[in-house]
């Protein structure tokens, strides 16, 4: 009987794999005001950037909403009913550019965090699990990356790789991975002393099996939480690098580039700087709040961690 109901439940969850997940998300979003705000902001950003990406890929050009379409007759117009965020020096619509910038920033950020978290988690797992001189060597190597002020190291690496989006990604991954290595190592150090790991070892599990089936599932939620918070910080850093001329290059509608380009038109054309910067801030706030809420949910005792900058 019970096996029957189990079977039914399993088949149901197979039929509706999203339902339980959706319910979880709703429970999380309504758990506190902060979580609700975070979920709203992040969903909004994701919808906007996915649509912008879709429009880019499918090559859809909505007239009056094309980030690269110039209109010399309408240069440097302040925000109006027609152009909600005004137009830039060659008459491109600022709203279209800010929207298009969202998927550029988010994809750079996801790429950076994918590299940083995979490298950092691997180093942290190995250092914590193996211990001894391997741990010592790996962690001193990690410390080396933390001996530089973050932006200075990122700028030096980006300059060495010749600038551009790929350099930015490499440079920021180099700045962010050490934090993952430290976080995961310290968690693995305490986890590996626990009974379920010892039990698994007694049953004859190999090192690889222990790492992948006992340790990794216990640490990956930490990685997700940290990465969520870091989305905002990576976007801040990436836009900073392009502001300095090391990241995306004009005419790419990247937010940092747009703010840099606005410098020559200040103070007359305030809208050129205010909207792209506001977009960066909104994304950073959204992911910051989401990361904090997830952390509270996961382990209230952790509290707000220090920022990974």
């Amino acid at each position, binding site marked *: 009987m019970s096996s029957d109901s189990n079977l039914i439940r399993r088949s149901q969850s197979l039929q509706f794999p999203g339902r339980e997940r959706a319910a979880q998300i709703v429970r999380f979003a309504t758990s506190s005001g902060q979580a609700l705000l975070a979920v709203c902001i992040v969903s909004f950003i994701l919808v906007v950037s996915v649509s912008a990406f879709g429009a880019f890929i499918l090559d859809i050009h909505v007239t009056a909403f094309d980030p690269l379409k110039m209109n010399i007759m309408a240069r440097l117009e302040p925000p109006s009913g027609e152009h909600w965020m005004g137009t830039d020096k060659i008459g491109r619509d600022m709203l279209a550019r800010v929207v298009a910038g969202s998927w550029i920033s988010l994809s750079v950020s996801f790429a950076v965090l994918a590299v940083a978290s995979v490298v950092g988690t691997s180093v942290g797992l190995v250092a914590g699990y193996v211990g001894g001189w391997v741990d010592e060597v790996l962690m001193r190597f990690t410390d*080396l990356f933390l001996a530089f002020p973050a932006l*200075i190291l990122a700028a*030096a690496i980006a300059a060495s*790789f*010749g600038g551009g989006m790929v350099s930015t990604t490499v440079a920021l991954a180099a700045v962010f991975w050490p934090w993952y290595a430290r976080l995961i190592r310290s968690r693995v150090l305490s986890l590996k002393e626990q009974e379920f790991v010892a039990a698994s070892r007694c049953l004859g599990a190999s090192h690889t099996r222990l790492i992948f089936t006992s340790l990794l599932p216990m640490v990956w939620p930490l990685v997700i939480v940290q990465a969520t918070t870091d989305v905002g910080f990576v976007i801040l850093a990436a836009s900073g690098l392009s502001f300095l001329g090391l990241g995306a290059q004009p005419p790419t509608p990247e937010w940092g580039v747009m703010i840099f380009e606005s410098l020559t038109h200040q103070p007359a054309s305030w809208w050129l*700087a205010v909207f792209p910067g506001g977009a960066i801030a909104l994304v950073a*706030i959204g992911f910051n709040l989401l990361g904090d809420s997830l952390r509270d949910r996961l382990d209230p005792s952790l509290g*707000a961690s220090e920022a990974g900058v």
Partner: protein
Amino acid sequence: MLRFILRRAIATTILIGGVVLMTFALARLLPGDPARLIAGARADADAVAAVRERLGLDDPVGMQFLTYVSNVMEGDFGRSVVTRRPISEDIVTFFPATLELVLLAACISLVLGALLGVLAAVRSGTPSDVGVRGVAVLGLSVPDFWLALVFQLLFFATLGLLPFGGRLGTGVTPPDFVTGFMTLDSLLAGRFDLLVDALKHMILPVTVLAIPSMAITIRVVRTTMLEVLSQDFIRTARSKGIRPVRVYLRHALRNALLPIVTIFGLNTGLLISGAVFIELIFDWPGLGRYTANAIASSDYNAIMAITLVVSIAYTLINFLVDLSYSLLDPRVKLS
């Protein structure tokens, strides 16, 4: 105690060695032929070869690294393409202006961050806690180069309250160079009008620079204070009838000092990074603006020199922070 200092000093020296090695490796990765860059685009093959010879670019990599280290030890970083002067001289010239900015911002972010953090912890769960935490999230999320621009638009262009940038008004003769700090030098010269002018020019850059590190300080202080406040000795102090303010600032904050000092050390990295943007926007003649200009004009020698010098300074600051642990808390084991 001496053994502890020695051990930390050795570890720090090794770390600095690693920093030098990594900077050297990054410089080797640079795009293009450095000899071609120095000789100029129109130089013939012989001239380029001569430059390669002079710079030792044909030597084995190990040899080149040794040359690099000995040059660094002598403070020789080569010439800047932009200023046409030795980079070490540039660094000495531009350093005081940045130090003045960073020191003031560090003090403000520490004091304000600690006070707001204590407030949020003491009033945990109340609107003032929520407000302070909101300020912290905002301070971490708003890009500083953008905030600098917005403040400039607001306080200079719209309200006309504060100057656009620079260290003194245009046409004002600076006081005699003594410390390189505009505020101190004006005081030493007895020129209060200059002091007021210098302070006016510092308000916006210092505020924007201090905000991100203040936000981090708030978070760290709040979290640590919440832990300390739940301990028994705080209840004892309270039940003895000691005034709450004294309990918070004397008993609790003192026990939260270690994380605060740690974050202070880490924040100097944030301040150095922030100075690059803020000096560029407020036209502040310091190392930050020098770095931003070096990046904009692909002055790789200067970028690498700044990276090295700044990172060594940052490592030394964190070494001092390590040492201060044992002074602040005798319970920290020295071994």
